[in-house]
Every structure is written in structure tokens, then in C-alpha cells.
């Protein structure tokens, strides 16, 4: 597609339930990032994919968070046993990488998924 897309746009869940958030990067972009934006923490990095591998998972806040990327395209962020402190906007970004047109390092963001844990 023309831009990064994310689904759902909004998700309300009950504490303790699992949720899956989806990201479709810009076609051909090799790098994909997940960030989250919350009132107390600002915009923070979660995980980075290059192709299907994740060389940097250091931002994931706990082992309840996991992510995968298949076919070098779509990524899914899964939060298990959600807690109220997981409430935030989850943002996905993609970057062309060296196989794309310069500037290779510019990141483009999707519209986000607003997660509310009751």
C-alpha cells in the first residue's frame, strides 16, 4: 500500500485477556519497528525487525510482549494477560533499508492502535 497501515485502530479489552495488533509496512520496506506512546512514558521503542529477524528486542517491557514478522512483510505484536498499564497507542513504522530509494533511514509511521485495558 501507499503507507503503513495498522489494525485495529481501537481495541478495548479486559484485564487478563490476550490481544494481537497488526502492522502492514510500506511495500518493499525491509525494516519494521514497533513503538508505543503513553501519557507517562512518551514515545518509546519496543522492537525492530530486519526482514523476519529481530536483532533488537530490548524495548519489550516484559515477557508478556512478543512480536513476529512473516514473509518480510506483515508483523503482529501480541500482548498476553494484558494489564491496565499496557493501555497506550501502539505505533508501527517501516524503513526502506539499503534495497530501497534513499534516504534509506527515514522511518514512516502508521496511524497506530489505541489499546485500552479495563
Amino acid at each position, binding site marked *: 500500500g501507499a503507507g503503513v497501515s495498522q489494525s485495529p485502530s481501537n481495541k478495548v479489552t479486559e484485564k487478563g485477556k490476550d490481544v494481537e495488533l497488526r502492522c502492514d509496512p510500506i511495500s518493499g520496506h525491509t525494516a519494521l519497528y514497533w513503538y508505543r506512546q503513553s501519557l507517562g512514558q*512518551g514515545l518509546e521503542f519496543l522492537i525492530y525487525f530486519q526482514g523476519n529477524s529481530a536483532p533488537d528486542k530490548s524495548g519489550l517491557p516484559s515477557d508478556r510482549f512478543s512480536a513476529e514478522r512473516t514473509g518480510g512483510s506483515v508483523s503482529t505484536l501480541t500482548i498476553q494477560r494484558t494489564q491496565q498499564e499496557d493501555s497506550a497507542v501502539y505505533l508501527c513504522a517501516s524503513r526502506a533499508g539499503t534495497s530501497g530509494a534513499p534516504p534509506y533511514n*527515514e522511518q514512516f509511521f502508521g496511524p497506530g492502535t489505541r489499546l485500552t485495558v479495563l
Partner: protein
Amino acid sequence: GIQVEQSPPDLILQEGANSTLRCNFSDSVNNLQWFHQNPWGQLINLFYIPSGTKQNGRLSATTVATERYSLLYISSSQTTDSGVYFCAVESLATSGSRLTFGEGTQLTVNP
């Protein structure tokens, strides 16, 4: 890790006024981007500017990498310029990885 500081945190302008937003960072960078977050939360790319000067309409930006700061200039501001402006950097030490964001500047342009 790298630190990013933005100033001022809040700015209120009358329509037509000019403004300068500043971003200081604590280490050498491979990437610096300015974003505008609109009222719906979408991050809009304004500039990719790890060094040098760029202009796009009423907006321009300058990054002096050797002195570790970047400036975003908004001229003849309009009410539609309101929102949060973020500076984000990618540290040279972690090239290929995360953007680290500043806390943002909340801009309000009154008619």
C-alpha cells in the same frame, strides 16, 4: 543511551507569527527526523535531516551535527500548524535500530 531534549515544551502563538523549536541531543546521530503529530495522533514526517538545512514551504530545518542540535522554523503560522512537534534521533552507536524521541513541543496557534 542517547538523550534528546526539546524546547520549549509549550508554545502559544497568534496566527501569522514565526517560531523556532529546538532539539538537543547527547551523542552523534545517523538519522534525525522532525514529526508533527496531528490531533488524530498520526505522526507526519516533516524532515529527514541528519545534517544541513532543508526547506519545505513555510517550514525549514537546520541540523548542526557537530554541535548536536537541530532547529525547526515555522513561519507565518496557521491554526492548522497546531499539534505536537517531535524530534527523533537514531544514535550512530545503534545504527539500523530505534529512534529515540524527545518529549515534544506542544504548539497552539490561535486565530
